[in-house]
């Protein structure tokens, strides 16, 4: 009786798991497969081709938006990682009067709908008469990436034994030396994870970017959107496949790095 019940339960849960995986991955797999399909339209397989990839790489518009995406992602993530790490250390270790409010401010971008973030930033830039362009996109990305970095680094700090800091001071380290020789090396996996998370979020963001990007600041998601307006081209499939590959590599890199640090 007992065993039959467990087997039944097990079968049910594996079915659910399978269903979830199918639901999640069928669209992605079919997108990858279709990017190699020679048919211009529809889902019928008419033969293997790399034509769409050639078209993709020979399009100057796509190259430009790719470069935009890379610049935005790297600059925004770097700045957000620095500010986010410092704010995590501040929130977690220091007790100051406005700590609670500061914490709320840092976390708010996580729960505010993207559309509100986008609109409010557009209004803000317009009010200050800041011309829209790559700069405004970078600023917008920094604001929401900071929250994620802060959260990731704080989780790392939770495992951090503060007496290690005292030990370093005890052994003769000045505050700056403690920071560089002890705190940073110990929380570096958190910092790297926060950075890579920022990169993926930044590469991925559409809604906020849509509002604050000016002419000449088109990122890949925006480009895909504008291309889709003229019908779903297999070039989009090819582009998406490369994006997926890139994100996957970033994630694997993060894993590898983590292992390297923790040993």
């Amino acid at each position, binding site marked *: 009786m007992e065993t039959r019940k467990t087997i039944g339960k097990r079968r049910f849960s594996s079915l659910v798991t399978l269903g979830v995986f199918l639901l999640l991955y069928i669209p992605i797999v079919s997108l990858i497969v279709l990017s190699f399909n020679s048919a211009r339209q529809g889902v019928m397989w008419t033969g293997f081709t790399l034509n769409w990839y050639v078209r993709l790489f020979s399009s100057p518009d796509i190259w430009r938006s790719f470069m935009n995406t890379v610049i935005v992602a790297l600059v925004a993530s770097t700045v957000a990682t620095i500010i986010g790490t410092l704010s995590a250390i501040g929130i977690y270790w220091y007790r100051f009067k406005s700590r609670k409010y500061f914490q709320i401010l840092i976390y708010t971008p996580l729960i505010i709908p993207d559309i509100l973030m986008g609109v409010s930033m557009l209004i803000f830039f317009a009010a200050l008469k800041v011309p829209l362009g790559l700069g405004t996109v970078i600023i917008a990305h920094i604001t929401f990436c900071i929250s994620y970095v802060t959260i990731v680094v704080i989780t790392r700090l939770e495992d951090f*034994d503060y*007496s*290690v800091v*005292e*030990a*370093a*001071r*005890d*052994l*003769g*380290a*000045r505050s700056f*030396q403690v920071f560089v*020789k*002890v705190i940073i*090396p*110990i929380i570096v996996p958190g910092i790297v994870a926060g950075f890579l998370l920022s990169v993926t979020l930044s590469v991925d963001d559409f809604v906020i970017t849509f509002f604050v990007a000016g002419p000449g600041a088109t990122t890949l998601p925006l480009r895909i959107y504008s291309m889709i307006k003229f019908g779903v081209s297999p070039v989009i499939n090819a582009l998406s496949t490369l994006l997926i590959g890139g994100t996957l590599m970033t994630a694997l890199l993060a894993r590898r790095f983590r292992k390297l*640090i923790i*040993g």
Partner: protein
Amino acid sequence: MKDYSVKLSGVTKVFEDEFTAVDKVFLSIEQGEFFSLLGPSGCGKTTILRMIAGFEEPTSGVIFLNGRDISKTPPHKREVNTIFQNYALFPHLTVFENIAFSLRLRKKAEREVKNEVGKMVELSRLFGQENKYPHQLSGGQKQRVAIARALVNKPSVLLLDEPLAALDAKLRQHMLVELDNIHDEVGITFIYVTHDQNEAMSISDHLAVMNEGKIVQKGDPIEVYESPRNAFVANFIGETNFFVGEVAKTEGEYLLLRTTAFGDIWCYMDREVAEGTRIEVSLRPEKVKISKSRPRGDHKLRLNILEGTVDETIYLGNHTKYTVQTRESYMKSFKQHARYLLDEEIIEWKDRVYLWWFADDSYLLQETGGARSDEQK
């Protein structure tokens, strides 16, 4: 002044939430001695240690290190090093790099670093562990790394904050001996914080018993054990029986104590006490003899005899702890065994027994308050 390694003069620490952790403490610790701060958790012993290390600043009072006021000196400029309760090793550095940390901060030449670390590895017996990371070490090894890391600096005082608390009992004994050896070898002052009276008793030259932010008694281990100042000390260091009562009469060096729980008891009087005074007397259980037959002798020999029933026996191999119910209260008696199975009288639960001790065996507490003669049950 110069002879003292560490001196605390009226040191008080009040935390932000207005909790007074340390209350006007005066303490003088001699050069090169092994000094223990002993007390229950929350008594302020760790706070004192942290103030000497520089992690906390005293609210008032002055701390001297080798005759110099260090109350305002930041921790990295004090010639003291600390062994933390959880070792606080740097997880990202190897054993070698952990030990070399302070040397490298001071930009020592790499040859010298190797040399100094090598000496420490030898002192703390860490051969072959130099390239391991802290998470690959056992508790005892981590402890040794912490000791080596702190001593490589050649501090004039080593502070130890319950360093053995995380180890199991057997290893703790072993590390205690090792700490003692290291102390003999390096010859610097050790200040040891613990709540474990056995650790403090066995290893210290002097110790201070603390309670509620105050030092209750200072002295060498024998002094503190044999002549506890008050009921708190008597109870915290070892076990004890208390008699609370009024002095009925005095005869020469002895007084007759009238208690409600045990009747009249003869006690040795090491200071003048007027008749009618309320006093407290401590009697260590190992001084109370226990037997099934009534001992010969009486009050003329200043012998106290109580009758009772064995309520509890805890056999511990080399000795047994008996709790005996007397007329209205309980008394503890510890009996050392030498030839338990061969020729000792076996005393069991519910046996009728006699408890007896001489008046000289008990000790008059200097401060009253806190002792309850019937608190054992």
